[in-house]
């Protein structure tokens, strides 16, 4: 049977992709970020850690979907997905190769479990999907595993509630565990953390909120899932609402998790960045050493 072995969270901002593309990953601004990801890049190459398939939860940023079609939860069932042209030409990264058998299986299972999925047989994937792959896998000729893109609407209001996302994660777990092939499956939750990209309040960062969010995500996601949208908006900025997608990842890991690695950094362009490796407690591996890294302005005492 297929198993959900791991949840990873990561930022997906385009500036990270641009830093890779322009060879800036070693400069003063970006090197702490890429150093913070290096332990994840090393970890995932260890025997047993490389997934066969990643269910990659992200939001489309007005790329595959325009104002004409706005699916709340969608799943990519195609054989492959091309990087989208978001206004500066497509990111020069490999096509994303899907896993149609598992994707269709998940889609069917979720619909039977009362989640009315939108099924996508043709879609381009934007930075929300491809930047996480670059951050975790670097710049390979082709991605080392299959990827099922799982776009969630967090742009046009209302996005799904945290509660709904958390429950969806649980249903994704059940769906994966009923797939007959023996597969190591990861569920990644991307986006966040606190950031606001619009209006006079742009540039908002809330370190205290972010660190609490990480803590509760690990220890008490049940309570965290009840946080209303307004609190995300007030505390984490208008684009911080992306964090509801982390609850999908968390819901797919079951009751108790072990945090293998936590990285938190301020700022990456306009955002605070969080990257975690979590595993279900029963099947968790060794924590990384060091287990927690804070860098950039996140180290300063004042929150």
């Amino acid at each position, binding site marked *: 049977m297929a198993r959900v072995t791991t949840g990873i969270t990561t930022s997906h901002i385009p500036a990270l992709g641009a830093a890779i593309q322009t060879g800036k990953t070693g400069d003063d601004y970006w090197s702490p970020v890429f150093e913070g990801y290096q332990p994840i890049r090393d970890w995932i190459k260890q025997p047993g850690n490389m997934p066969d398939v990643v269910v990659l939860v992200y939001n489309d940023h*007005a790329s595959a979907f325009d104002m004409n079609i706005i699916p709340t939860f969608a799943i990519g069932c195609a054989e492959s997905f091309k990087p989208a042209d978001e206004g500066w030409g497509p990111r020069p990264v490999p096509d994303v190769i899907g896993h149609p058998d598992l994707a269709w299986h998940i889609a069917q299972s979720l619909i039977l479990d009362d989640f009315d999925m939108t099924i996508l047989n043709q879609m381009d994937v934007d930075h929300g999907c491809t930047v996480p792959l670059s951050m975790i896998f670097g710049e390979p000729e082709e991605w080392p595993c299959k990827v099922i893109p799982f776009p969630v609407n967090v742009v046009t209001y*209302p996005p799904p509630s945290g509660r709904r996302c958390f429950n969806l994660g649980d249903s994704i777990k059940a769906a994966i565990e009923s797939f007959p092939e023996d597969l190591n499956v990861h569920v990644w939750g991307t986006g966040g953390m606190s950031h606001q990209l619009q209006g006079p309040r*742009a540039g908002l960062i809330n370190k205290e909120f972010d660190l609490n969010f990480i803590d509760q995500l690990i220890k008490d996601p049940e309570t965290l899932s009840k946080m209303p949208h307004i609190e995300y908006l007030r505390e984490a900025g208008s684009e911080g609402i992306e964090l509801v997608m982390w609850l999908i990842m968390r819901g797919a890991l079951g009751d108790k998790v072990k945090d293998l690695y936590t990285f938190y950094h301020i700022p990456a362009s306009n955002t605070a960045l969080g990257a975690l490796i979590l595993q279900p407690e029963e099947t968790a591996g060794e924590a990384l050493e060091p287990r927690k890294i804070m860098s950039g302005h996140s180290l300063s005492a004042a929150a």
Partner: protein
Amino acid sequence: MSDKKKERIDIHEYLAQFDDIPGTRVFTAQRARKGYNLNQFAMSLMKEENRKRFLADESAYLDEWNLTPAAKQAVLDRDYNAMIDEGGNVYFLSKLFSTDGKSFQFAAGSMTGMTQEEYAEMMLKGGRKPDGVRSIKGGY
């Protein structure tokens, strides 16, 4: 239907809360409807041939999109706050600033009234603090 299925959110309360966040315009259905043509124009810039045509004659290209005069002027001025007032959404509008070769940091900074240098400096120092900008009514 004897027992209540679940706690329902009151849609009017839900939407009204959004007006209480300083300096923030949440992309509600009302804004999405108002900005439909503006956002669809921005989406059209995902094609290289459209970017070329737009940059060659912005005004003529914009006339193809049935924009309000205010929306058209906002685009010509690259006034992102004004575009958001016209129902634009930053992820749609990103196609416009990407066409100009500008970043999210540039666009976000341009909406704050700060210079690019001041905005970059604020971000390096940990970003804008949430204190005092969470709620207009609550003042916290």
